[in-house]
């Protein structure tokens, strides 16, 4: 009965890791080849990971919500013979909560409570790194230690992790015992053990706080614990130094020999919590509720119930919500950060008067509808951009600094920024120069709707040479778009509305209402000079103002 390990495959070019969002199978389930076993959120898409084996799910190595590097073993299958009921698989069964892909409480708590660096990959050999005390506790609590998420350096498992795991889901877990009535099953502490001494039991008793508090701690408000002494390994202390955190301030419920014990992840979680708190209070643009006097409002104790034991609730008073910075959100963040800190941005603004464009669209719209296509202005803008790019190829380029060269792209692949619930996504319409208006309209519509449903394939978001952001669809005139790096330019579209324009009539100038399209063109000033940007904008505007010109391309 060979057990096959299955690694997270490369789900799209260049994708280095993904968040395992949902398990679609549980240990013991039969699976067929190509049957989806998990949903993984990568760079910008939610993809289903298919099984490459026919067999029975042996073990899940990753918790829902965990970031998994490509190439890490995520699941193992027993192939060949009937594998279910094998004793090795048994202890895991309680773990993954049945067939209905409902995240089990432990996993959910972990996901919410820990930072992005949590849960290192399992070691390739499947070995579990945990000290003897933790291993013994795991047996005592009936926990399969291989299924416990370690919070220590490299994913090392401590007693607190084992307790948290036991608390989280393995309540009535089957013991990994081959089953004799005589033999002691590693079920929770047997009450009948009378006067026997067990170091572990004792430690648990005089010990320390509720295990549940441990999982909750990271998400609680960052209240300096201010202990006098704290136990931590040298590696943890180094992490603390690097993050400028005093280990005595890091909240923990874990103890070693009666002293507070802090792990590297505790330190990171605390540092992150501190950071997000300052960031929140400084940068929140939404109307911030004025500081609430918590002791007066009287609901301080109600904050989740679990956060309490770490610090005095009255002192904390923070009701901030913590949102995990990972998956799509983090990808967007990193991408923006890279773009802005790499490419010096300049944004050029201008306005096209688009009477003719409005007319052209009105004329074509019924024709499009006959073919089942809803014609927007977007295809016209795309065509106009291609016209501009052909004239000013430096805007359809990429700077390869290491190679000391600027690559002028010969393909016209336009990324269209789409706002989705999960965040910004930029699907790419390829070869815009070769496609007709209706074709483009249909394609944009399809990509945008699939982006909103998060059904895009990673490949559909790659290969762009220039991007368009249509913030005007929501409202507004001008913006300073951020370039979709490593592209070198992006065009932002305001709303097409009637605005006052100055026109000459009968030799005199007058202000009249006319439909206009405000344009915001951001360029990478390393590659493109302002004059070229302006000229490009002029060409685009020319084609928008005189849509017949589009025929010349």
């Amino acid at each position, binding site marked *: 009965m060979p057990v096959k390990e299955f690694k997270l495959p490369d789900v799209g070019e260049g994708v280095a890791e993904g968040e395992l969002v949902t398990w679609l199978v549980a240990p013991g389930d039969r699976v067929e080849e190509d049957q989806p076993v998990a949903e993984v959120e990568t760079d910008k898409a939610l993809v289903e990971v298919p099984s490459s084996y026919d067999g029975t799910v042996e073990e899940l190595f990753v918790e829902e919500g965990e970031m998994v590097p490509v190439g890490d073993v995520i699941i193992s299958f027993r192939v060949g013979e009937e594998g279910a009921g094998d004793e090795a698989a048994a202890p895991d069964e309680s773990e993954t909560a049945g067939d209905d892909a409902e995240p089990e409480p432990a996993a959910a708590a972990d996901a919410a409570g820990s930072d992005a660096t949590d849960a290192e990959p399992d*070691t390739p050999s499947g070995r579990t790194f945990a000290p003897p005390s933790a291993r013994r506790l795991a047996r005592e609590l009936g926990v399969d230690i291989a299924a416990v998420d370690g919070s220590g350096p490299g994913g090392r498992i401590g007693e607190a992790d084992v307790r948290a795991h036991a608390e989280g889901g393995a309540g009535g877990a089957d013991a990994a015992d081959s089953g004799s009535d005589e033999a002691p099953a590693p079920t929770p502490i047997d009450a009948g053990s009378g006067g026997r001494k067990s170091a572990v039991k004792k430690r648990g008793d005089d010990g320390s706080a509720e295990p549940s508090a441990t999982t909750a701690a990271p998400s609680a408000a960052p209240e300096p614990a201010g202990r006098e002494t704290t136990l931590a390994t040298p590696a943890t202390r180094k992490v603390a130094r690097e993050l400028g955190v005093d280990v005595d301030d890091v909240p923990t419920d874990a103890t070693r020999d009666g002293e507070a014990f802090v792990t590297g992840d505790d330190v990171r979680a605390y540092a992150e919590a501190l950071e997000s708190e300052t960031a929140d209070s400084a940068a929140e643009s939404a109307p911030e509720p004025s500081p609430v006097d918590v002791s007066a409002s009287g609901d301080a104790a109600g904050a989740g119930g679990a956060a309490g034991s770490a610090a005095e609730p009255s002192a904390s008073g923070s009701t901030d919500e913590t949102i995990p910075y990972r998956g799509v959100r983090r990808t967007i963040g990193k991408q923006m950060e890279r773009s802005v800190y790499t490419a010096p941005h300049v944004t050029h603004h201008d306005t096209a008067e688009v009477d003719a464009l409005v007319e052209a669209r009105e004329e074509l719209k019924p024709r499009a509808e006959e073919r089942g296509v809803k014609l927007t202005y977007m295809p016209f803008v795309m065509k106009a951009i291609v016209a501009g790019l052909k004239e000013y190829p430096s805007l359809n380029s990429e700077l390869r600094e290491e190679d000391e060269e600027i690559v002028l792209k010969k393909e016209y692949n336009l990324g269209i920024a789409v706002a989705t619930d999960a965040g910004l996504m930029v699907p790419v319409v390829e070869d815009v120069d070769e496609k007709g208006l209706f074709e483009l309209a249909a394609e944009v519509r399809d990509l945008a709707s699939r982006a909103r449903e998060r059904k895009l394939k990673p490949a559909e978001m790659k290969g762009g040479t220039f991007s368009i952001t249509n913030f005007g669809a929501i409202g507004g005139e001008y913006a300073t778009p951020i370039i979709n790096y490593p592209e070198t330019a992006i065009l932002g579209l305001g709303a097409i509305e009637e605005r006052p324009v100055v026109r000459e009539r009968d030799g005199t100038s007058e202000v009249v209402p006319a439909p206009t399209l405000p344009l915001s063109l951001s360029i990478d000033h390393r590659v493109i000079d302002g004059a070229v940007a302006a000229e490009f904008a002029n060409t685009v505007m020319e084609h928008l103002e005189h849509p017949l010109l589009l025929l010349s391309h």
Partner: protein
Amino acid sequence: MVVGDIATGTEVLVIGAGPGGYVAAIRAAQEGLDTTLVEKDAYGGACLNRGCIPSKALITGSGLAHEAGNAESMGIHADPAVDMGKMVEWKDGVVDRLTGGVEKLCKANGVNLIEGTASFADEHTARVAHGGEGQGSESIEFEHAIIATGSRPIQIPGFEFSEDHVWSSADALDADSVPDRLGIVGGGYIGMELATTYAKLGAEVTVVEMLDDILDPYEDDVKRIVRTRAEELGVEFHFGEGASEWSEGADGGYLLHTETEGGEESTYGVDKILVAVGRRPVADGLDLDEAGIETDDRGFIETDDRTRTAVEHIHAVGDVAGDPMLAHAASKEGIVAAEVIAGEPAAMDQQAIPAAVFTDPEIGTVGLTEDEAEVEGFDPVVGEMPFNASGRAMTTGHTEGFVRIVADDETGFVLGAQIVGPEASELIAEVALAIEMGATLEDVAATVHTHPTLAEAVMEAAENARGQAIHTLNR
């Protein structure tokens, strides 16, 4: 002949009072279980009486004599005379103190001691033939049993053990004089420890080994250092030769005949022949089949990670339960057996069991070698610290060898270490702790070590693996 057959009962019956059995018995008694320990020979087993302890005593004694006589470079001029009989007497004193201590500890913890030979009558009954003349036997009903009968030296055909000419390791530890010429069959750890000891005591030692090197399971660079040092001490090695027979020599000594696989014969003149080709389990005479227990084809009793045999209320620990045949493994198994019986959540779940060879220099190993780590699927990273770069090693006059530490590159977890050099048997303990605790290279490297000590070499090796060693060039 059964003179009187008295039936008694016990919760836990432990058979054999070696490092597996006596530890199991004491722990079982500590757990509040009514425990009976049967020993047919001597408390402490082979380890205390015929193995670890007496050999270490003689290694220390012979080492001291050799050191003192070879310290001219330190300005010490001496020619120590060794009184072998006296040294053995001193060794016996040490052994007596320890075995007496074991007996006292057992009694103090409330273990019932019975001297005799146990065998199974059925799954819940053992018969114990009392030691000594004219003694009776008794039947003991037990709820749980722990078999800890250990192992004995393997005899090879034609080389029946006898004090006069063919020694077992036990005889070699009880000799009243040092033979002029000692032929040793077997270059394993027992053969090599005794080869070193007797070479230092002045014997001309010849080692005959069937394989093509000594200390089979160890890595080549480890073996080479020990072999080179043994050669410096005058030990002669003949590899690829198996002992075929012995005969009396013309000079009052004996002739050790060997044969290669190709049929090439050689003869070595010796005064004693020590056969040290391994140990085999002592399971015969136990009537295991009466209890429903079988042994494998090598005679070992198979157990699970809770030391249970196929018959779940009967456990087996130590050498009789198979590899690793090490006293400390036996003790750990004994503790696990007792705790499992007591209902504690114990298991043999350690990451690694360290091992030591008390050659000159010593070898200490724990966990995985670089190759083994790779086979297990790790991406190993290795750091080394040679003792010739250690200040403390220089001041001991022993700078051969090195500390090598193996870790997983990705996570930094320490996976193993191979130490050869002065006090390697002691130094290995730190790495064993690191492995067991799931420590990383950084943890070991960032832990302050006392200066000047040999243990600094462990820290240096960890630093070396991280490319941050101070006293060696980083790889």
